């Protein structure tokens, strides 16, 4: 197998693990690190359809997105952040541990999404000319896991991470359909805008509650 083929499979595995980590982790540091890995995987999968320089825009945007979210959250422990979010009723004396069932439920949901995606991916390869199986699988998987994340979360950070994961999946598939520079630029603005909006919402949430 050629080197690029191995890189694509590696990127697909990395994207899946990272998206699962975002889904089950409650530590924002792990979540943002996983988001950065997703963007790295996206870059690897997108470079098949685009030139290296344009594909690099995705990677740089992703790293900037991670940096914006990281800077806005730095200085707060996971425990403080969880206390600010309503669904977690953790008292100040309790350690921020989530029950096993929380992770198991989300993993089961992810498994169901995985089954649907595996059955849909070959169909997408047939319908979209030029898309590879890895791109189809990676794009649909990230889109599906992002959607699952959005449906089970209502906290600001989680919603923003879910939206960014979902968009990363969409961008992998859309990169095969559209290669315009303006679209790349505008989608980069959307990604950065979502992270900036998230950072803003997070800061006013803390301002309003502390």
């Amino acid at each position, binding site marked *: 197998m050629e080197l690029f083929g191995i890189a694509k499979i590696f990127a697909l595995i990395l994207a899946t693990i990272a998206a699962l980590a975002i889904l089950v982790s409650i530590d924002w540091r792990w979540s943002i690190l996983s988001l950065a890995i997703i963007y790295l995987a996206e870059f690897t999968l997108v470079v098949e359809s685009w030139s290296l320089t344009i594909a690099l825009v995705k990677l740089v945007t992703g790293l900037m997105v991670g940096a914006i979210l990281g800077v806005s959250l730095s200085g707060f422990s996971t425990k403080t952040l969880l206390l600010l979010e309503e669904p977690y009723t953790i008292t100040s004396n309790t350690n921020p541990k989530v029950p096993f069932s929380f992770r198991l439920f989300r993993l089961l949901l992810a498994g169901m999404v995985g089954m649907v995606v595996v059955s849909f991916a070959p169909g997408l390869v047939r319908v979209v000319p030029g898309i590879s199986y890895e791109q189809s699988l990676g794009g649909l998987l990230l889109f599906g896991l992002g959607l699952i994340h959005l449906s089970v979360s209502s906290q600001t950070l989680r919603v923003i991470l879910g939206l960014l994961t979902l968009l990363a999946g969409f961008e992998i598939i859309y990169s095969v359909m559209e290669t315009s520079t303006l679209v790349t630029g505008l989608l980069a603005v959307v990604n950065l805008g*979502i992270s900036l909006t998230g950072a803003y919402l997070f800061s006013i949430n803390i301002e309003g509650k502390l």
Partner: protein
Amino acid sequence: MNAPLIWIGFPGVIALGLFFLVRYRRLVICIGVGCSLLLAFLVLWLPLESVIRIGPISFVIPEYQTIFGRQFILDTGNRSLVFFLYLSAAFWFFGSLATHVDPRFTPLGLGITVLLTSALIVRPFLYAAIIIEIAVLICVVLLTPSGHSPGRGVLRFLTFQTLGMPFILIIGWMLSGIEANPGDSELFLHVAVTAALGFGLLLSVFPFHTWIPMVAEEAEPFNSAFVFNFICIAIPLFGINFLERYNWLYSSPWLFVFFRLSGFLLVITGGLGAMFQRHLGRLLGYAILIEIGNSLLAMSLAIGVVENRPNFGIFFSMFLPRIISLGAWALSMSVIHKSTGDLAYPNLTGVGRQQAAATLALSLAILSFVGFPLTAGFPIRLVLWSGLGQQFPLAAYAAIVGSIGLLIGGLRAIAVLVMGTDGKPWQSLASRGEHILFSLAIILILFIGVLPQWFFPQLFRMARLFLKLEGLSG
């Protein structure tokens, strides 16, 4: 110098610059109003693509600008809409003078107007989906002023609008495939489902409408009303642009199903929700649902054969009564909210006796949304109901039921506001500026209702120019 630079670049720079002046609230609002009015009247009077002579200097302003191979074109069809957009922006900024909204309202609002103008004139128009998404991100900031925690409604708004964008972008690709293979019925079904999902999410069609009452309850009334106005204008116009680009879709039976069913569901949901509402903000949210539903039903009258196309004038004519009624409703809610701190009915009992002017403006705004005779909303509701009655009576009944639901909800709200003992004196504690704005709103709502022939033909003409239908009668 070209048209997109004047109507996008210049106000964009002004909007950014105003952020540095937010501490001078009145100055920022005055600049915002002045800039919007200037651009609104310039778009009507400034000739494009023809020689302009000022003394010894002569020059031509081109109507397009190319960026990365894509064009922004301000042609004759778009000019009246750009005029309306900047005029309505000036209206909202002027209204914010009397309210205590976030000082960033004007720069953010101007930024949203600039993006909306860009979305209207970008070619290929599918790029508008991304531009609208960027405008939505600014709306999120507008809906959550500093010092307030973001509500769930705002997060849901962001989620639904962001989810809609990928579907719209993918439809563009699918439709180019259909144009290459017109007989591919399987692909056509995929397009129908994807388009229904994409536009359903963007237009807040049932069941994606839940964020509207939530945002109306959580956010500052004036800001949320501005965002609702944006949603009611931008997204349907984007939809019309979409149909104009792929005009063979006009004859699709799926289109009738989408417009009629989603409009029907929204007016019924909105009417029932309004009837049982116990929060003045949420009541506005349900009124907006009815308004979106009516817009969809109005658009359904214009699809099918090409002779129906001038009926888009009904949809365009809804802009004017909506913006005035929405402004009056938002302003009066802001004043009431300022005096009570809450808009839930238990806290509003008898407030109307201290805020008589606000209550009067609110009552007229509600009646205009209902389509009550002699108010601004009546003439166009009558045209819509009679048009629907001829083509699809069930939708006409649903639209009337929606209006009756809102009327019942509105009467309950007014009853709560004016409730009190007879000895309690009536007074209006609003400021002089607020009184002036209330008076203007009341006069406009009644004036448009009494003399519709002065206003609505212009709006029908706007639709004909936008759709390039000058040859067709309607």
